[in-house]
């Protein structure tokens, strides 16, 4: 059994699965249930200053569903904790005392004044919590008051607040980033410059989850109106993975610890975030959809995968995929693959044919000698992978690399064994040419 123990910037937890700062971590009651279920740590739902905020009394969540009501994406307009600060602090202190082996991080959001941060940091330190997470991410409500993503969208503010916090507390500081920016590297660099011990991302994405066509208002509606919320859940995972990778491979922030967040639903999702550099992962939507028990298979599945893959501890694979995250211009243009359809697995639905015929390269037959038959025409196939993606049968269509030295029937050119990319390609006006003359 692999060792799942995690030491993330000094925060120790029995496994890398933490609950993200969100409704599941708003109260001792929930957090204790989570720890009982096996969660490795929590980021306590964001504390603010008294008097506490108020939430709307109508719907706070909206969702995107699959046909069988699978929850694919969740949208929320809930604010930070609406309970008095002292109540939260007392509960944090008690829970940490009762569960010393679990990571206890406290999320914070106060106005952008140094003294406000000094005050709250002192109070959190008194609870014995292991660390703090600066919530620079929430895209709704708090941002209208100059907090949350309003800070996270301005790298200078991030750096400033991070520096204050590092100055005024001994606790490790995690900066939670908003994805509602154009280049995630900038806020990450700012957090790094401010001395952050780690960044966590992504927070939720600005969203309108749908429009009620009868009420002619965004859904869910509150007395006829709707406001944008923050989007999360399985649907946002690809966006989050990219942002994590961007930070992991940026020369300035490379090596900066990352707590990965965004649609983690299974052990595999977690492993993917970790392969891209996340030292721990944070989960919310999966728990809100299925309850805390989901962590049990996250633990078991990750451990089983590690055993199968020969990893004995998590740090052996954290960041292992980062070196393979490249830029387009560095991809090998001499690598040539062709789609191949396994006729034994093919159920003859024809989706590959019509997708290729209507929208791509006319490289898949539908009839051969008058018989319904789907086969790749190598002379036309550019290896785009669309057929693989639309095929309903797993592994029925595969991309087969062509051997060096063989001739690509499409271009009639011999497959070159050497690596060559766009930077040196003759069609590139900016190509780096060797000084021949």
């Amino acid at each position, binding site marked *: 059994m692999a060792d799942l123990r995690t030491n993330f910037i000094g925060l120790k937890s029995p496994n890398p699965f933490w609950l993200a700062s969100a409704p599941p971590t708003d109260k001792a009651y929930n957090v204790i249930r989570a720890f009982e279920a096996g969660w490795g740590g929590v980021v306590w739902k964001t504390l603010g200053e008294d008097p506490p905020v108020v939430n709307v009394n109508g719907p706070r969540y909206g969702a995107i569903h699959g*046909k*069988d009501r699978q929850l694919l994406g969740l949208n929320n307009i809930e604010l930070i904790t609406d309970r008095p600060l002292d109540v939260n602090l007392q509960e944090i202190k008690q829970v940490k005392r009762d569960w010393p082996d679990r990571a206890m991080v406290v999320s914070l959001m106060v106005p952008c004044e140094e003294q406000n941060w000094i005050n709250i940091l002192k109070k959190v330190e008194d609870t014995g919590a292991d660390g703090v997470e600066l919530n620079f991410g929430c895209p709704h409500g708090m941002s209208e008051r100059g907090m949350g993503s309003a800070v996270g969208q301005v790298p200078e503010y991030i750096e400033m607040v991070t520096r204050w916090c590092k100055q005024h507390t001994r606790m490790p500081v995690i900066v939670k980033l908003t994805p509602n920016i154009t280049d995630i590297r900038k806020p990450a660099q700012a957090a790094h410059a401010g001395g952050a011990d780690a960044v966590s991302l992504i927070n939720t994405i600005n969203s309108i989850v749908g429009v009620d066509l009868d009420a002619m208002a965004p859904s869910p509606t509150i007395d006829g109106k709707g406001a944008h919320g923050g989007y999360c859940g399985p649907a946002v995972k690809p966006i989050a993975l990219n942002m994590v990778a961007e930070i992991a491979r940026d020369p300035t922030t490379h090596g900066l610890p990352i707590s990965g967040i965004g649609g983690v639903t299974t052990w595999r999702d977690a492993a993917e975030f970790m392969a891209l550099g996340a030292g721990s992962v944070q989960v919310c939507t999966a728990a809100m959809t299925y309850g805390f028990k989901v962590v049990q298979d996250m633990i078991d599945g990750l451990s089983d995968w590690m055993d199968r893959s020969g990893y004995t501890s998590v740090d052996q694979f954290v960041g292992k995929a980062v070196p393979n995250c490249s830029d387009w211009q560095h991809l090998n243009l001499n690598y040539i693959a062709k789609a191949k359809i396994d006729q034994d697995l093919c159920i003859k639905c*024809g989706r590959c044919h019509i997708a290729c015929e209507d929208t791509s390269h006319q490289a898949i037959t539908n009839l051969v000698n008058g018989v319904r038959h789907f086969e790749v025409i190598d002379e036309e196939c550019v290896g785009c992978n669309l057929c693989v993606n639309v095929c309903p049968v797993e592994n029925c269509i595969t991309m087969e690399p062509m051997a060096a030295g063989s001739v690509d029937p499409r271009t009639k050119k011999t497959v070159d064994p050497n690596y060559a990319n766009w930077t040196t390609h003759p069609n590139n006006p900016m190509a780096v040419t060797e000084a021949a003359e």
Partner: protein
Amino acid sequence: MTQQNAAPDVAAGRLSDEEYKKNFADLHPLLAPHEAMVEADRCYFCYDAPCTQACPTSIDIPQFIRQISTENPAGAAKTIFAENILGGMCARVCPTETLCEQVCVREEAEGKPVKIGQLQRYATDHFMETHETTPFTRKASTGKRIAVVGAGPAGLSCAHSLAVEGHDVDLFDARSKPGGLNEFGIAAYKSVDNFAAREVEFVLSIGGITLKTGKALGKDLNLADLRTQYDAVFLSIGLGGVNDLGLENEGKSGVLSAVDYISDLRQAEDLSALPVGKRIVVIGGGMTAVDIAVQSKLLGADDVTIAYRRGQGRMNASEYEQHLAQTNGVKIMSWVQPKAIAAENGHISAIELERTAEENGQLKGTGETVTLPADMIFKAVGQTLVSADLNGADSTVQIEKGRIVVDADRKTSLDDVWAGGDCVLGGEDLTVAAVEDGKIAAASIHRALSA
């Protein structure tokens, strides 16, 4: 002591009201909206879909299923009705397991086809519940008049298509009610809540169709007269005769035609008034045999046996229907043929069956017999065209193998007479095939009259 079968045990009211209700409830109840969405999502929206190719009426199945999945069930129904105006009944009675669902790629992939029939019913039921009329608008009147003889599936389909084109149709039927086998045949649990009659009303809502019931060809109508009175004639007269077993005592009380009994059952207002035997033997191997066997079981018969002269795999009833019979407690006995019927005091008491075997493709009796006590024997050995109805001497409608000969356009040997449904040669004896006949004939008639 053993009970002697001196008196036949044929009785009505064998069950409680609750049992009748339960036994004759909808075989496949309407899918709930969520069920329909989930099922529709299983459809892969195949290119040049095999299901559509397998459908005798070529309904664009992936398209209508997609429309269900996008919450557009009315659009789905329009897609169905565009090819098959009796899509509602076909959704209930089509042997989908040997048509669209047999070739569904999901059947190939996992042995579980998309429930196309049930989705079709979901769409068509929705439409008929929310709309007063068919989704078609009748074109300006052409002044042409067509006689459609027989208001079963073929006749209704033909009449509707012709009416859409602006022709005026007189739709005749020998019975007092239209619908043909949809109304008088078909197991009751496949078409509950008077659906057949409601569907006829729906079809007639197009306008331009005058229904004339109680008019039988050969009795009240004469083909020669129709040909002079109308611009075209479509014959969809079905098969009015029933094959006999050719045995002594066949005329005795207790030997019944399955078709007639099913008709009585379909029209019965009170099922508990319908007498049914305790021990029943059904002779035949088609859908009618299964329908009568299952329904007599559901009416409270104790012991029901289908006796079929060849192996079970050769039965015309689909595998699904055979399973339906067997799960309802009907025994299927194969390789037996009726040899003699025993009768006492004017009522039959038993049937003697002879074992059969096939030699060089020829079916032969082996001489070995088995006798089953029976209170009722149902004949379900096929129906015949009553060709005398086509007006004897005058008729030049070509008949072959007891069926009307038609070309690909469903035109008979007469220039102005078309035919379709069970009465034509080469038909499949399916509601959906009859609908297609009517549709093709109507298109051909329209072309002929527009020329």
